[in-house]
């Protein structure tokens, strides 16, 4: 169980994130959904450890084997294969593992291409390959398909599903797309202006939202 308690982050009097409590069960797939600026990225960054909240604690985080993919992940200008290998921490088998991961996300033909020549969507797939190249306990992904085309999105989603089932990895991802949330998540956490407005099983929150704000957000989306 991963528990976030009393997480508060302010910037010049404005509340960026205010989470009194959020508990997450290991192995489950969670989706953070909400408008731009609702705090999705901030919550992910705090959980990943790249941003420190003003107050609050996170308990139950796996000490290692946390993987985090930021928005617009950086691709170094060496080969795509090497870009993935660097996530494998000097494992003697890293080359094979990297190639296998690239294969899963449909990027094997890019193995020798230079990282800086990739499109946004290709870079996101490569970044995912980095994370799934070895087993992990927790994956944090910030809008992992924001730059991909339909095929790329498909590949990423199926890879994540497979990975989650194969090694029981907890998955927390953010998205703008309720459809993606429905496809990929077991539970949905709805954020607005830094606060959790609603949370629950994906089918419930997305199809029959309780809160007014959630309803407004989802009204443009036709099922």
């Amino acid at each position, binding site marked *: 169980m991963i528990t976030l308690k009393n997480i508060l982050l302010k910037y010049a009097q404005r509340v960026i994130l205010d989470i009194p409590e959020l508990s997450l069960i290991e192995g489950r797939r969670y989706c953070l959904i909400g408008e731009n600026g609702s705090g999705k990225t901030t919550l992910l960054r705090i959980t*990943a450890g*790249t941003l420190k909240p003003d107050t609050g604690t996170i308990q139950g985080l796996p000490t290692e084997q946390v993987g985090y993919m*930021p928005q617009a992940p950086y691709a170094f200008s060496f080969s795509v294969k090497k870009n993935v290998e*660097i996530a494998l921490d000097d494992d003697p088998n890293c080359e094979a593992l990297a190639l296998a991961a690239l294969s899963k996300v449909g990027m094997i033909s890019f193995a020798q291409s230079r990282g800086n020549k990739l499109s946004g969507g290709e870079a996101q797939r490569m*970044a995912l390959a980095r*994370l799934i190249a070895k087993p992990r306990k927790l994956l944090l992904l910030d809008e992992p398909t924001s730059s991909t085309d339909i095929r790329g999105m498909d590949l990423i989603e199926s890879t994540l599903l497979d990975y989650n089932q194969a090694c029981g990895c907890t998955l927390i991802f953010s998205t703008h797309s309720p459809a993606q949330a429905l496809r990929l998540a077991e539970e949905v956490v709805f954020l607005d202006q830094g606060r959790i407005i609603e949370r629950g099983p994906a089918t419930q929150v997305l199809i029959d939202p309780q809160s007014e704000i959630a309803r407004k957000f989802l009204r443009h989306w036709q099922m």
Partner: protein
Amino acid sequence: METIRQIFDLLFGVNPELRQIIWVTLRMSFFSTLISSVIGIPLGVLIGSNQFKGKRLLNRILSTLMGLPPVVAGLIVFLFLSRSGPLGTLKLLYSVTAMVIAQVVLITPIMTGLTANLISIKAPLIRETAAGIALTPLKRMLFTIYEVRVQLISTILVGFGRAIAEVGAVQMVGGNVQFKTRVMTTAIMMQTNMGHFEFAIALGIVLLLIAFLINSLVNRIQDRQIT
């Protein structure tokens, strides 16, 4: 006309003193640039990639040092190396080593500042990604340097250009001693003071050519980056 003939003779002839002066200049500039880069670039990467307390103050100090007048740097190093100074026993005054020391004082802040600026553009994104895959800080730094390697080369060339063109500090701590610490810039000053304009002009032409070469290289590199 006669003057131009003499200049040509000096440039393409076998004037050993001219060649020796150019050799000392290149040797000094090479070591100044090397040491300044070895200190300045990693320092610049550290400053550019990280947020820390007092960073603003450090940047302000860096800016001031970047604008340090060469004669002031020369004076400070001179006072340190002088007989009555703390490092007088090293007997380094009026040597190429002393000139390199003064130039390192001048050029390291420039290398640091330019590198930090260069890095700070890409650093936050690299940082975020690196944290996500648990990259060690050392590897992160090395990869960051790799990412800006081409611009770093042009930064190093800028440093070399400063070293080769500097005159105030090297005159003070080097003393412009014939056959020992006479470099192109101090030789030009001296020859002009003595009224020997042909020699000064010949040296000036060589210096201009080198500066032009460096500038073209820097421009070529920067153009390649844009395409």
